[in-house]
């Protein structure tokens, strides 16, 4: 029997899409029955009370959660977010309902053995409710009490060989696309890079040392499946520098209609016969492709690696072999001076384990930002305040026309004295010798 009546939430059990209400109810019922005899360490009816407080929000249109009180594990400044209910008498099971962020494995692959162990721990010491995964990438565990935090951390590190993720003004848990493990477009080993940097910068991940949060995300190619260009302070996007590899026979098969374009992505509608001129050559943003008879030509020097032709004809075209990645700095959501996309700071860098060159750049950046960044200022905002050129100097990378969309539209250049012939130290007498007052 359900503890609380939830007529509004029950409406969300209907319809085809997987119902989160059914899912919470399922957890509530399983806890009530407790067929496995689990010694629950937080209230048995935590999921019933979660449904209850949510139904209350559905009734009055207001959230019933409070922020407040710093909670966490000893020595770490992140990984746990304190959460309390503002109706603890009505819903004692969720009076304390803290979030635990568990660092996900790169690429989000799991063995069922490991997943089941995670489930056992979280059912025993928490609500059993999770987010697979939080927007940052972590495994998010929703709802436990303060005394359980150290116990969870102890079991995670001792028995599951896994650590907490980041929160607060820390390095946040890095995240990547699935990269080379199953994507033919991946120009870098996104998973390995993500895993490597996560381990390399553990200290920053667990101990707040920054003005504000900092995120790394890695996309294997410009398709951007982990949205690094929009969501990460430092975005890694895989690229190739040389030529797109062409299989002319497969090109002809696409033209002949033997292979569906775009991997079959448009199969649900009749878009007519594939037309290589209209669908590929004309849509190429740099107009660097053409046909010579039945042979496809690409002027690779002019290609800006937008991925369109490769996405559209994956059997005929492959990324090049001289691969690496671009680094883009400073993406963030609109809070506060408007949204920012990552700005290109390094057009191309080799991206091979142990990533020494990349790590050197990151260290320079962190050192600078910890010094110059204002409190609660994202690095993208710092960059806006001091200018892109200053950042390039910090990173000690060469100035390159690729880092701008277009050159400046004003002549207000802050020349440096040493750049100007003769310097700025002039004598009025000299001037007057040429010009009478």
């Amino acid at each position, binding site marked *: 029997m359900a503890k609380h009546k939830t007529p509004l939430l029950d409406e969300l059990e209907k319809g085809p899409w997987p119902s989160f209400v059914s899912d919470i109810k399922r957890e509530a019922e399983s806890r009530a029955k407790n067929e496995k005899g689990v*010694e629950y360490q937080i209230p048995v009816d935590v999921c019933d009370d979660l449904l209850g407080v949510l139904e209350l929000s559905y009734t009055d249109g*207001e959230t019933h959660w409070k922020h407040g009180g710093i909670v966490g594990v000893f020595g770490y400044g992140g990984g746990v977010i304190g959460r309390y209910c503002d109706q603890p008498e009505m819903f004692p099971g969720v009076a304390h309902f803290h979030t635990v962020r568990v660092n996900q494995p790169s690429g989000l692959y799991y063995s*069922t053995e490991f997943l089941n162990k995670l489930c056992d721990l979280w059912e025993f010491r928490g609500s059993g409710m999770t987010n697979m995964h939080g927007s940052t990438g972590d495994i998010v565990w929703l709802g436990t009490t303060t*005394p359980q935090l150290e116990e969870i951390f102890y079991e995670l590190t001792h028995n599951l060989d896994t650590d907490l993720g980041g929160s607060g003004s820390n390095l946040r848990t890095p995240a990547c696309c699935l990269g080379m493990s*199953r994507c033919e477009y991946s120009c870098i080993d996104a998973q390995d890079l993500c895993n490597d940097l996560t381990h390399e910068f553990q200290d920053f991940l667990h101990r707040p040392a920054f003005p504000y949060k900092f995120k790394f995300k890695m996309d294997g190619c*410009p398709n951007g499946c982990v949205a690094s260009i929009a969501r990460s302070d430092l975005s890694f996007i895989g690229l190739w520098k040389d030529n797109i590899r062409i299989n002319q026979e497969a090109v002809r098969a696409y033209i002949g209609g033997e292979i569906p374009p775009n991997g079959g992505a448009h199969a*649900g509608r009749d878009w007519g016969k594939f037309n290589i001129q209209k669908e590929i050559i004309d849509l190429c943003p740099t107009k660097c492709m053409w046909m010579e008879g039945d042979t496809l030509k690409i002027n690779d020097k002019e290609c800006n690696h937008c*991925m369109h032709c490769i996405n559209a004809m994956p059997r005929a075209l492959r990324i090049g072999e001289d691969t690496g990645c671009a680094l883009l700095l400073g993406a963030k959501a609109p809070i506060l001076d408007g949204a920012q996309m990552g700005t290109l700071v390094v057009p191309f860098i080799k991206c091979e384990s142990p990533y020494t060159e990349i790590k050197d750049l990151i260290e320079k950046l962190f050192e600078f930002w910890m010094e110059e960044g204002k409190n609660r200022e994202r690095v993208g905002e710092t960059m806006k305040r001091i200018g892109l050129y200053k950042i390039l100097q910090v990173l000690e990378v060469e100035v390159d026309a690729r880092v701008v969309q277009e050159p400046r539209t004003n002549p207000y250049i802050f020349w440096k004295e040493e750049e100007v012939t003769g310097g700025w130290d002039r004598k009025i007498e000299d001037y007057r010798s040429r010009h009478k007052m």
Partner: protein
Amino acid sequence: MAFISSGYDPKQPMKDRITDIGPKDYKEFLPPVIKKNYGKWLYHEILEPGVLMHKAESGDEVYTVRVGSPRLMGVQTIREICEIADKHCGGHVRWTTRNNVEFMVDSKDKVAPLKEDLLSRKHTGGSFKFPIGGTGAGMTNIIHTQGWVHCHTAASDASGTVKAVMDDLFDEFTQMRLPAQLRVSMACCVNMCGAVHCSDIGFVGYHRKPPIIDHKILDQICEVPLAVAACPTAAIRPTKVDLPDGTKVNSVAIKNERCMFCGNCYTMCPALPLSDGQGGDGLIIMVGGKVSNRISNPKFSKVVVDFVPNEPPRWPTLVKKVRQIVEAYSKGAHKYERLGEWAERIGWERFFEVCDLEFTWHLIDDFRDPAYETWRQTTNFKF
């Protein structure tokens, strides 16, 4: 409910302490066919909605069945996922960056039984547990945040609005009949803890009333300077207030016309609540963003509906407006054209017309510097 220790000793927190070990090595979790062909994939094909085949240089093939999930799930459901993965996939499974679950098998004959098994599983309330889809030129799962399930600044619910919209557009998840991918996101307040600002369609919960000041308790439970500093628009200043009983207390004053309803002050100071179920809170709809570099550059989303009321449990107005946009896009866009590219090609003035949406003064940007770049500086517009 007896307390059971993990081995941790609160008197000696440093004893046997293990820290800074990071995540487990992802390589341990790769299915054998993935591990063997790592970095050696040749091409892929979407065999049908939700089913991918990747071909490796070695000739090996891996078949992936992608299913949706509500993201918010209990360990019972995760164990069921494990049970399926044990039965069909040799004990491996993965999640996508958009909260879908992927089951992988190493030969084609294993696909049909896997699919049948997945689709046969339903919740007692009738919804699918594992609907197959989310590939190609269609709509995949909606990225979303916590909402009323867990966050203190949420102006709307995340899981409920997403469920209502996904139910309505379910056919776009299970089919591939749109001009290109349609990426939809939801955030429950203007902090936008997701990539809502770069999605084809995003809906964002937001408040419209400045905080209520609880003068009686403010000074006892908050640090006034922290509350003042929290405000991004400098709308808050310290002040002294006379309570009805005659006592004078330290508190704050808020310049209401400067408030952008972000809730940062409430995060710092619980005596400044701003949620309002009496007509204040609701959602905005943003469209036309993208993160891919394909054909055109990544783009930010633009606000096209200034307010949709909170209508739990099924948010009919939100659902209707999102559908209007999807239908107009589906009808008007060229093959490969993302929603934002289509809107730019036809012009935003035409976008409002074909989507049957009203353009109000709220949609003219007046927030700080970037606003100017959104105004029109040409006579190239349409009647």
